[in-house]
């Protein structure tokens, strides 16, 4: 069963007198479990809107989103929250870490909403920080971490619930080349190890080059959908452990 299936998905913004914007305009797409794909396209082509629809942060104007075979159309807020909580992990361009929590506490947060028992939570948080090579910074607040480190914390947070789907909206948008490379490296390692689906929205051709499938959007529609051999990763220096 496909991990994500989109059927005639559309999101139309119509505000007052202004002309309506078809941010997502009839998209059909199927993503198998364990895929590592990039969503690219010019600014305003609907990438973020699409990602938010897939992750149930937003509801479509028409069409369907199936997550692991479940049609999210017509689900109420509570049921959508449950899908987000159990099936989806999000990574954002601006990290979105809570400033008052340290790395460890940020990572553990989704498990609290999942009502996982205390000791189990801590074990998994340690594990998740280990996966992104940040065990040594678990007590640091976001303000004490570099951009790359913050994004790795955010990735650990997205992965801790073991979601079937990880959605990342320009995760390297605020990072330099070296850190971009490291983040992609971490994601690919996790994708290999845990077989989770990764959908990464990006402007960066280098990032797209490291994926196995590139979906290009234009004006809310899929312009092209190509599979490729991913480029080899050669980050200048490994993240320190």
């Amino acid at each position, binding site marked *: 069963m496909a991990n994500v299936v989109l059927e005639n998905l559309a999101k139309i913004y119509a505000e007052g007198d202004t002309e309506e914007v078809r941010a997502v305009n009839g998209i059909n797409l199927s993503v198998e479990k364990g895929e590592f794909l990039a969503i690219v396209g010019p600014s305003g082509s609907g990438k973020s809107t699409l990602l938010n629809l897939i992750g149930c*942060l937003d509801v479509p104007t028409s069409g369907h989103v199936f997550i692991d075979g479940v049609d999210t159309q017509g689900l109420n807020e*509570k049921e959508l929250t449950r899908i987000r*909580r*159990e099936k989806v992990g999000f990574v*954002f361009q601006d990290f*979105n870490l809570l400033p008052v929590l340290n790395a460890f506490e940020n990572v553990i*947060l989704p498990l609290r*909403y999942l009502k996982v028992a205390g000791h189990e939570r801590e074990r998994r948080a340690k594990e998740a920080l280990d996966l992104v090579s940040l065990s040594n910074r678990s007590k640091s607040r976001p303000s004490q971490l570099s951009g790359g480190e913050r994004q790795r914390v955010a990735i650990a947070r997205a992965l801790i619930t073991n979601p079937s789907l990880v959605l990342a909206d320009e995760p390297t948008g605020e990072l330099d080349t070296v850190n971009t490379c490291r983040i992609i490296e971490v994601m690919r390692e996790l994708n290999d190890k845990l077989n989770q689906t990764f959908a990464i929205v990006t402007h960066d051709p280098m990032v797209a080059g490291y994926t196995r499938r590139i979906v290009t959007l234009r004006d809310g529609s899929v312009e092209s959908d190509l599979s490729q051999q991913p480029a080899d990763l050669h980050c200048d220096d490994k993240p320190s452990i």
Partner: protein
Amino acid sequence: MLKVILRNMWRRKARTFLTVFGIVVGIFALTVLGGLSARLTQQVKGAKSWFTNSISIVPTGGSLFGGGENQFFTLSKVQEVQNVPGVKEAIAGIGLLVKSSQTFSFGAPDLIIGLDLSRSQDLLKQLHVDKGRGLTSGDRGKVLLGSTLANKLGAQVGGTVDLRGRQFEVVGILQPTLAAPDTFAFVSYKDALELFFKANPFITRGQPITSVIYATWDKGANPEVVSNRISKQVSGVRVISPKEAEKQISQFSLIFNAILFGIAFIALVVGGLSIINTMVMSVSERTKEIGLKRAIGADTRTILGEYLLESSVIGLLGGLIGMGVGLLAILLLNDATKSNNVTVFAISWLVVVGPVIFATVLGTLAGIFPALRASRLRPVESLRED
């Protein structure tokens, strides 16, 4: 969870401080007034227990504390009251202010009460002697002092005190009741009569008079019924039954409590608005954070709970500090007035716990609106915000 809330509050120190300060001021006022009200309640309760032990009969136009210094009965009235069925004993009494110039006082005034000792043992039994002994039939020139009055006069058992220019030997001092009898000096009827004549030289001496008659009732008789009977059978008197005495005393405290509630209401409005203001700002500032929490799976109830908890913690903190400062003020003020033998404030569990609970509930209520708003935002919309 609590740790996170405290950190969030700490992160916005200045604002948290201002909000908490607003609540502290309100709760401080509430605590101090609560102490005042508690003291009043104590006194009212004590006054009630004393004045409802007997039926007071005063000349028409007189009040609970006796007929006043120019209103009195002749002694024949005592016999008239005694003849009413249901009356066990009618006791001649004279009420006099300890200081002729005393005007207003907080609670009961300092009062000399002269009683016909041969008949008033039932009534005097209600008083609990702390040191020395009670008054017995035939005592002359002896006084039984309430604890506050004894303190004020610096009296010792066996020593003497000056009451209206006459020396009395102190035979006993009563246990403190925190209320009415504390400020009373009990003497014999004859002694009080002499003082009365001295204070009112224009009244012909030798004519035995009484300014108040206390009546006790037979076992099993209803004092209200007996009171009614007295006012029907005896002319020219005002009968204050136990129930009426209670009503008169309660009225006094009612007015005061109304003022207290008025101030509590202001505290509610000010404190509530300041919490609402803080929470609205704090929530809109963290819209994005809420969006993030929703994205990683927090449902609306969880978000609502988190922000409600935060506002109730603010309320609790303000309540605790305000109550603490208020309590301190009460103790200091009580200490300062100690030398005057006045106790203005009392501390009861309600004075301590009440304001804290009040502030916490207030904080929670004030948080409801912003918390509801926060939890209802759509995740995409909140995440877009900066």
